[in-house]
């Protein structure tokens, strides 16, 4: 056999091994027996707090819903990103169109592992990258609460994604790199309970880092600039820096932060806007202890300068 022929065979074998490795590495992983045992039976009353902390309605209720309509999780919100448009699905208790037929374990696998009942990877537009840090008991409580919500029929349109993002199996590799249930910010041994609670709420259910942290080229959050602010994933504009670094909220007191989350007013009485409006309304439903804990954590995260480029000083046409 001539050299090119041998090389070609070598390439095919290498590709085969690569493909096997790809298949192995991208295999959807499920929660382990320990986590499954930790789920428990769930408590709907406690689950309501997790539901609002998790902000499920921002994506899974009809856009601009208020009051009771917020609890109709029929889906339909479109998330326009650089990878294409994602549509949040129906997660109401409808057994055909929603998740009414799901077991607690299936729900936990979606929330903590980003894996569907049929074993497919979810796209991280569903922020399980943060939810993966949730406690199994909280996920079970959330499941119990969601069982009390109405069943609403209706299917949402499919996502419209560009190649190669439309290949779900590929998400497996991405997940190996970016899904981790470990806390982002290490805190000292024996830190106050309040700080630990704040960390849990922000890094886990609250998924604040999904918007407030800049992303690298493959779309993973850049943990070395945690909460430093970012160019908005959708539309133009920026998401502010909420660390105490340059350009951030170092001059806000803990009370200022808690008050913003409760009332929607900044310390100089500007009003909350953009996608933070829904978040603020949800966090306003938590207890003042929860909001104080979030504030304590934000004051404790390492300061970073803004995670987005400075705005040009003049906006007059430069070209």
């Amino acid at each position, binding site marked *: 056999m001539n050299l090119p022929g041998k090389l070609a065979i070598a390439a095919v074998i290498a590709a085969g091994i690569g493909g096997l490795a790809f298949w192995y590495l991208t295999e959807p992983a499920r929660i382990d027996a320990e986590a499954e045992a930790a789920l428990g039976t769930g408590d709907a009353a406690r689950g309501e707090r997790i539901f609002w902390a998790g902000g499920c309605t921002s994506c899974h209720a009809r856009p601009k819903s208020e009051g009771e309509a917020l609890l109709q999780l029929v889906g339909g919100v479109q998330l326009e990103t650089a990878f294409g448009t994602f549509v949040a699905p129906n997660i109401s208790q409808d057994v055909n169109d929603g998740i009414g037929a799901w077991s607690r374990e299936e729900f936990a696998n979606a929330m903590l592992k980003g894996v569907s009942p049929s074993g497919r990877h979810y796209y991280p537009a569903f922020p399980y990258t943060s939810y993966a840090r949730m406690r199994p008991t909280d996920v079970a409580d959330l499941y119990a609460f969601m069982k009390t919500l109405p069943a609403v029929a209706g299917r949402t349109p499919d996502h419209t994604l560009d190649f190669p993002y439309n290949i779900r199996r590929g998400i497996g590799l991405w997940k190996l790199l970016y899904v981790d249930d470990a806390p982002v910010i290490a805190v000292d041994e024996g830190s106050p309970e309040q700080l630990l609670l704040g960390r849990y709420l922000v890094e886990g259910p609250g998924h604040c880092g999904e918007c407030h942290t800049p992303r690298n080229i493959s779309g993973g959050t850049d943990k070395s600039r945690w909460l430093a*602010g970012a160019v908005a994933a959708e*539309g*133009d*504009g*920026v*998401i*502010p820096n909420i660390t105490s670094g340059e*350009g951030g909220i170092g001059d806000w007191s803990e009370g200022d932060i808690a*008050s913003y989350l409760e*009332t*929607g*007013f900044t310390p*100089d*009485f*500007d*009003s*909350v*806007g*953009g*996608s933070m*409006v*829904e978040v*603020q309304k949800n966090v306003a439903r938590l207890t003042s202890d929860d909001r104080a804990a979030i504030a304590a954590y934000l004051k404790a995260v390492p300061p970073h300068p*803004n995670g*987005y*480029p*400075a*705005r040009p000083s003049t*906006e*007059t*046409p430069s070209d």
Partner: protein
Amino acid sequence: MKKFVIAVSAIALATTAAFADVIADRKAVMKENGRQVGVLVKMVQGEADFDAAAVMAALTKLNENVQAIDVAASFPPGSDKGDTTASPKIWEDMAGFQAEVDKFKAVTAEAAAAPAQSLEALKPQVAAIGQSCSSCHETYRIKKG
């Protein structure tokens, strides 16, 4: 050709400069709204004592400001460029923006017509006003860093 480009840039510059005043004025109005609302929020948050006269004064001033908002004069097309956080959506959906302004006018008029006489009564008034601020800022304002 080069001269033409320079001339066009100059016109662009001139129009941006012309909007600078409009933008500065509408921001000043917004800041002033914030100041009046601040008086009320401080009472609700327990940072200041409830004071019926101060509530009346703040609501009256706020309402005067808000009733004077004139969308056509303060948000001319093209004034999304410059030192502004106004979203281009204002000009893409003028009717929607006008509806937010009308709602804002109705809410402040209602509050100014019956200023709260107690802290308990003030809370829902402030919540309703805050709701109209954030409802408009949600869609029609954009932080640009």
